[in-house]
């Protein structure tokens, strides 16, 4: 099913490095990704895969002094934000792209009332609104009791805090909401509630969402398309139903096994063997090769081009196991837009 709506967010071969005491870390190694208006997209990876770095790069929230975007473009509604000055980038945050974070307690200011924290967003992005009234609307929108405007973060439960954080982001009136592990810190019941709320809000507001998680289950229930990221590279992407139906990359397959906690012949839990790679090494070849059960000689030599798998061009993978598609690489990588 070809998408018809224009992209709200587009990452084009983004390379980002961190300077650390131990040397340069390549956190993003040419990551490409597209989110269309109104669409729910999942970004899946283990911890350290670069998924949070990617999300923060969109808003320029990686530490200024130690991180650098070396190459690539980040287009928000068609505008390349990597070329913005610090002040311009500040002004561009929140609208049209807003973000909610993982741990709702530490990400709320502990000594500021919830209502005030929401109001700050409103004053910044929609100053002509009647702030008080709008705060009330937003609190209602995330299904919190209106009295909570006067509460402090520590007085709220984990689920309520996540809703409050969501209200802070929604007050920016975003067209794309980036949610970085929004349910990881919560218990299972609360997780389900927050996911349901996110789905409702998207329908109500027609807002796109980029959901970042390590949990495939969440992606299955909340996203239309997904990207699998590893060592700062996207290894597989496509419609959720296609990827779930027939995961192509050995890494994706491994993730699925780990998620289902499948037992192998010996009765042990299946996990992906080995450790995520040291991102300090110069990346050459497929980063997953050292851990890959199907690794071949080519894998260590070069990173494979994309191979389109399903008809309708909705599912692609970068792996030597699949014959590369003849089209030019960039076209395939932007396949979502087609």
């Amino acid at each position, binding site marked *: 099913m070809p998408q018809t709506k224009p992209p709200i967010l587009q990452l084009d071969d983004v390379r980002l490095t961190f300077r650390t005491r131990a040397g340069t870390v390549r956190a993003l190694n040419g990551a490409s990704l597209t989110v269309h208006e109104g669409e729910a997209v999942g970004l899946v990876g283990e911890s350290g895969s670069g998924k949070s770095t990617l999300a923060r790069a969109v808003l320029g*929230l990686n530490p200024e002094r130690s991180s650098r975007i070396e190459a690539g473009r980040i287009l928000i509604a068609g505008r390349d934000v990597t070329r913005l000055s610090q002040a311009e980038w500040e002004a561009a*945050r929140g609208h049209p792209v807003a973000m909610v974070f993982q741990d709702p307690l530490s*990400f709320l200011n502990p*000594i*500021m009332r919830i209502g005030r924290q929401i109001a700050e967003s409103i004053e910044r992005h929609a100053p002509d609104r009647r702030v008080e009234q709008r705060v009330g609307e937003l609190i209602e929108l995330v299904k919190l009791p209106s009295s909570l405007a006067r509460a402090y973060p520590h*007085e709220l439960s984990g689920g309520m805090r996540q809703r409050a954080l969501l209200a802070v982001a929604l*007050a920016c009136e975003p067209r794309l909401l980036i949610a970085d592990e929004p349910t990881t810190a919560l218990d299972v019941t609360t997780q389900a509630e927050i996911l349901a709320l996110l789905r409702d809000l998207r329908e109500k507001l027609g807002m796109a969402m980029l959901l970042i998680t390590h949990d495939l289950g969440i992606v299955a229930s909340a996203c239309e398309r997904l990207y699998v990221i590893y060592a700062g590279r996207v290894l597989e992407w496509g419609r959720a139903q296609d990827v779930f139906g027939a995961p192509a990359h050995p890494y994706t397959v491994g993730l699925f096994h780990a998620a289902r906690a499948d037992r192998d012949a010996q009765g042990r839990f299946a996990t992906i063997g080995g450790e995520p790679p040291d991102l300090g090494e110069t990346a050459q070849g497929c980063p997953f090769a050292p851990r890959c059960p199907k690794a071949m000689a080519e894998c260590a030599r070069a990173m494979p081009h994309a191979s389109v798998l399903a008809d309708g061009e909705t599912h692609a993978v970068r792996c030597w196991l699949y014959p590369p598609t003849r089209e030019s690489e960039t076209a395939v990588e932007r396949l979502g837009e087609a």
Partner: protein
Amino acid sequence: MRRFLVARLGWAIPVILAILIVNFLIIHIVPGNPIQALIGDFPAPPGYADQVRHEFGLDRPVLTQLGLYLLNLAKGQLGFSFANRQPVLGLIIERAQFTLLLMLPALAAAALLGIVMALAAAPRAGSLYDSGLTALSLVGFSLPIFWLGQLLVIVFAIKLRLLPAQGMFSLRTRLTGWAYILDVGWHLILPMFAVTIYYVAIVARVARASVLDALSQDFVLTAKAKGLSRRHVLWRHVLPNALIPVVTVIGYNFGYSLTGAILVETVFAWPGLGNLFITSIGNRDYPVLQGIFLLTAIAVVIANVATDLIYAALDPRVRAAGFRHA
């Protein structure tokens, strides 16, 4: 908030009681006649010693003595200073004003300076400027404050002849109104400077740590993600959070600050508690010395409770917990 206040008073009252008992013990444990500790070494009118002996029940059992002592204190009777021909309580309150006049502006200046320096140093953690700040507080902790006072007098009053070295006002002329206030301010500069340097040592170290801590908090990311300007994030989110530890450190160190001011006064002949203290040492005016200890100790306890209340007002999390954070 009321529960919190009750909890803090529940802490303060036993502490004050303990201070009173310590004061009582000093009279009795030190060698010599307790009557001398109660009167001092200044010639007192005949019969006064007997009167005091009776009032404090010095010939009665120790517990009765303690009871009488507390009773006398409760009536506000801290004794009479024959050297100053004045009741001790009134004398101390009169002088305490001058000490506060020296101390409070210095505290305010130190707090401001400490925070500003910490804010300037924070983005450059590990830099030369930053290590300079750490070194400064180490130096401040090691400086004998009275010596610092002497150095300031030698440099600014004696060598450069910029500022007056001693006292609180010019003796040659009688000034009134604004001229008087300006004159006092003029005399205040050097001692206040000495006290401020000393206080900055306490503040700068904590301020540096708390600014760095606040800057690295996750909520700063949320604030940035909302699109708030860097300035807004710094003033509305980072600074209020960073100020809380600074305010509490200043409050909890009220005794330390007071001691500093008292020592500086002796160098500059500033007519506050420190000056009263040193002349009373010279006069063996013991009731005054004990009175100063008693009242400063109680002031410190009150400052502690006040700090807790301010802390609670600034930080909603403490209000909820209702106990002291060390």
